[in-house]
């Protein structure tokens, strides 16, 4: 069955609500948070969200932001790349592929990630709502009773120690000249992005296509390509991902190396 049948397509009517979606991204704790918010707007139980509609709303949001020349954090763009990929798989008839999860499974996984995030949000709220020491509940505070002098004991925590060391090293860092930042996509960023992207899919993805489409403006094309390639190679070396190219200059296909716990 196609993704279209599987998930009710509600995309068109939702794109009308774009103005609503042009929200201050600062208000969100990241792309997953934004997705969660979008999912809630579908006004159904989180078990019944339409992932396809969600993907489309998210992509519309990102497009709008880009057209308004709003700068989006890399995380949002990586998620966009991933959702674009998922969307294309949901819309295309599923080819009989032996390896990797189906599009529907990926969609389900995304939905359950959202539910898990929501559950942890709720847990955080319940924790925060508990009577807290020094706010709702008070201990006895030691008063003026003189402490009988004995052998002095001292206390300090590892945190104190590390903070003290960090403070001093920080001074040394500050005395160094800092060069103005060029828009580059660092290796670390690229690596994190790849991890997120690949963490979702168990199967071959043509990376550069998605990354380039969403992650970059033209001025960052080169750096994104270079960094993702370097990061990919590094991850291949570590045995975390596999890389595959059909022919010279053909698209680079990447997939996560199967870790423990994945379907055999």
């Amino acid at each position, binding site marked *: 069955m196609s993704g279209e049948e599987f998930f009710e397509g509600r995309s068109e009517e939702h794109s009308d609500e774009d103005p609503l979606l042009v929200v201050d991204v600062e208000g969100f*704790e*990241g*792309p*997953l*948070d934004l*997705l969660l918010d979008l999912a809630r707007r579908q006004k159904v139980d989180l078990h019944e969200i339409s992932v396809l509609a969600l993907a489309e709303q998210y992509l519309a949001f990102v497009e709008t932001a880009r057209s308004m020349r709003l700068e989006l954090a890399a*995380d949002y763009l990586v*998620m966009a790349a991933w959702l674009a990929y998922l969307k294309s798989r949901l819309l295309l008839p599923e080819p009989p592929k032996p390896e990797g999860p189906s599009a529907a499974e990926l969609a389900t996984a995304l939905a359950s*990630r959202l*539910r*898990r*995030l929501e*559950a*942890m*949000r*709720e*847990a*955080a709220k*319940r*924790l*925060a709502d*508990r*009577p*807290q*020491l*020094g*706010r*709702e*509940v*008070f*201990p*006895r*505070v*030691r008063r003026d009773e003189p402490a009988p002098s004995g052998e002095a004991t001292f206390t300090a*925590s*590892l*945190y104190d120690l590390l*903070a003290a060391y960090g403070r001093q090293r920080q001074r040394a860092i500050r005395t160094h000249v800092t060069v103005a930042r060029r828009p580059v996509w660092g290796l670390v960023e690229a690596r*994190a992005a790849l*991890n*997120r992207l690949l*963490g979702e899919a168990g199967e071959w993805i043509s990376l550069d296509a998605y990354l380039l489409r969403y992650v970059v403006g033209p001025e960052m094309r080169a750096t994104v390509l270079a960094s993702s390639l370097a990061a990919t190679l590094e991850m291949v070396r*570590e045995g*975390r991902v596999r890389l595959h190219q059909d022919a010279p200059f053909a698209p680079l296909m990447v997939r996560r190396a199967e*870790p*423990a*716990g994945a379907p055999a």
Partner: protein
Amino acid sequence: MSAGLAWRGGLAIAVSNEPALATAHSEAMRMAEAILFASPEPVPVRDLAGRLPHDVDVESVLSDLQRLYVGRGINLVQVAGGWAFRTVPDLAYVLAREAAEPARLSRAAMEVLAIIAYHQPATRAEIEEIRGVSTSKGTLDALLETRWIRMRGRRKAPGRPVTFGTTPAFLEHFGLNAITDLPGLDELQGLGFLEGKIPADLDVPTPSDDLLLTDQEEPLDGDALAFGPTPGEED
């Protein structure tokens, strides 16, 4: 008033069949009351037992003492694996001025804290996986500064990432006796939300703030440290 009655009730026992026993019991209650009152930290039952006369039934001393404070402005509660006196939550409004208003955690920090609490031992990457966003340095720093979380050890996994967990101070702050008292824990467990994606196989998805490392962790050791979080296999 009601407590006064209760206490008189306690004394009444002294005039009962076994006077000596009753006296020893209420004397132990006085001692326990004084010890718990004077101790800055919650007192574990073991410690209390070690400081009361040997023939005393500590559990019953504690439960009688706890009952004595029911309905009062102070309660005897179990927190962080010990017993302590605390003002009752419903009087918070009267006591607000005692507070050197503690810094409120941001929503993000609270979320990271919750994830660490429910998923501990948890690495930064695992936290980020759940939140879908990278954790700002300031957030972990702020949490470490509260002393509610600590670095536990390292995960036995590529990169040997540092694992985080909560401290007894966390339990004390949130009035929990043990980490398994976290609100909604069973429910989250039932839904499979606490299952780590990383070491899926043998992992028992119950948060552990045990001082001992789990078998998926190793001590915060290592030469690897000096070179940062990348694995030391430079061959």
